[in-house]
């Protein structure tokens, strides 16, 4: 059985951002595997370790440097990787067309991807892939187990959570709390260099972006920055704050 873990290269969450024309300039930004996707790679490896005859394939669709995150997934333990190279920015619905075609071509039965992208704040990829394949989906998953061709687990919903079971094939989106992704060990880093990393071009998939970004601005909301250091005077600092709540913000009667 094959599991496909879809990963994306995004700016590190703690790095600073710079806008240039219609998009974010990433040229001087540290790029990493989206942590939300990393939980998917880890979960795929755990399912493989708990089962038998499972192959884990990592997929990235994106710029040339996406090869780095695929090498990272291979070093974590993925069996092989596919890189669909493109400098085009694909919106998640367009991207799902590429993913679905690879799923069919490879005979994949379980697709894992992050629940929310760190760059576009999008939650659409998993559901869009599932719809293209006519598969069920489980989003915001906290627990996952695979037994006799069926997934069992728990996931978050609007106002709480629920347990679920579903027969494969399926798409599952991952999030923090599902697992703790492993760090690649040195032997695995060495091994990863010998693993298959297939490169393809986007043209072969006949997919074009459906959404165009025409402008991107960094928030530059000025905050008042009136900071009080309490020191030993907690009473004084609290009194000042209470005064602000009462007279400036008028939220205390």
């Amino acid at each position, binding site marked *: 059985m094959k599991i496909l873990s879809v990963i994306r290269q995004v700016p590190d*969450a*703690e790095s600073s*951002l710079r*806008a240039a024309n219609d998009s*974010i300039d990433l040229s001087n930004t540290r790029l990493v595997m989206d942590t939300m996707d990393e939980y998917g790679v880890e979960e795929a490896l755990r399912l493989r370790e708990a089962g038998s005859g499972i192959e884990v394939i990592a997929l990235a669709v994106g710029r040339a440097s996406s090869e780095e995150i695929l090498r990272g997934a291979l070093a974590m333990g993925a069996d092989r990787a596919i890189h669909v190279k493109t400098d085009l920015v694909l919106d998640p*619905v367009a991207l*799902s067309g590429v993913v679905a075609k690879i799923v069919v071509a490879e005979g994949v039965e379980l697709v894992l991807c992050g629940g*929310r992208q*760190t*760059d576009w*704040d*999008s*939650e*659409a990829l998993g*559901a*869009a892939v599932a*719809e293209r394949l006519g598969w*069920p*989906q489980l*989003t*915001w998953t906290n627990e996952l187990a695979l037994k006799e061709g069926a997934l069992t687990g728990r996931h978050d*919903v*609007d*106002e*709480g959570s*629920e*347990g*679920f*079971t*579903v*027969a494969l094939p399926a798409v599952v989106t991952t999030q*923090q*709390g599902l697992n703790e992704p492993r760090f690649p060990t040195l032997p695995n880093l060495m091994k990863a260099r010998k693993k298959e990393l297939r490169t393809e071009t986007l043209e072969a998939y006949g997919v074009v972006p*459906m959404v*165009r*970004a025409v402008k*991107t*601005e*960094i*928030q530059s*909301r000025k*905050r*008042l*920055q*009136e*900071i*009080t*250091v*309490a020191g030993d005077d*907690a009473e004084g600092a*609290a*009194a*000042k*704050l*209470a005064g*602000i*709540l009462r007279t400036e*913000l008028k*939220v*205390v009667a």
Partner: protein
Amino acid sequence: MILVVASYAKGRLSKATYELVTAARQVGSEDAVGVLVLGSGMDAVAAEAAGIADQVLVVDDAAFARYSPEVWGEAVATVAAEGEAWLVLIAASRSGREYSPRVAVRLNAPLLEDVISLSRDGGNISAQRYSFLARATETLMVETPVVVATVKPGIFAAATSGETPGEQFEVEQRVAASRVKTFEERVDASSAVSLTEAEIVVAGGRGVGSAEGFERFIVPLAEALGAAVGATRAVVDAGWRPYTEQVGQTGKTVQPKVYIAVGISGATQHLSGMNKSKVVIAINKDADAPIFKIADYGVVGDVDRILPALLEKIRG
């Protein structure tokens, strides 16, 4: 037609539905606005929707008693196609964002997610939304005959009732049942005030110290201010507070008038859920905590000492 998908709870339309109707009226002043009510036992919800819509399309069937992304995706797309809707608007709740991509794929339409503005210029639709963990605002453009969008709650004003109620139509839908079996549904207890609709949020982080610290400081302060209680991921992971109170990338997005962050250092993932708050007040013992960079007012000091004093002064 612009199709608005109603969201509701306990037999009442949710505020988000009223906001979607406003968004629809703004983007298409010439268009009829149809509200789709999908569920089981929908009489009251449909009647309420008639107050703000030109038409109400009612799919009332036991097969829709329970939400499922597969079922909702198929039904909404089918009704949109039959009604020749050029725009489908869905509330950007967790469930709305979960099934809307299915609607877009079925309609071969682009998806604009969690938008804060929407406008039409000839055949172009443009929308603004936050991205990069809500650190950037992007303007997107699409030029397709059909567009699906999810709209961020709390941005558009609520629509007011028209003079003549919209006409109601019963719509038959036959869709395949979901293949997912669910069990052990848990509705997390939440504070008296809804987190996403609250005007004031009092949120705590690891610096609050313990679950008991929340009971001693955060909950009473929220009660005194009529505020909702919020929490960081770390606090929820530690089991101090329920997941429904989580604010941030993997929790809720809030934009209250006043956000009081207590013992929260301010990881980017948390900030993405609250950095659109009008006024941010931070209380933290570490003067270098990133939360102070986005604070309007701040106190550098011990939560254990500041909070009891603050509570006393607010209670008068």
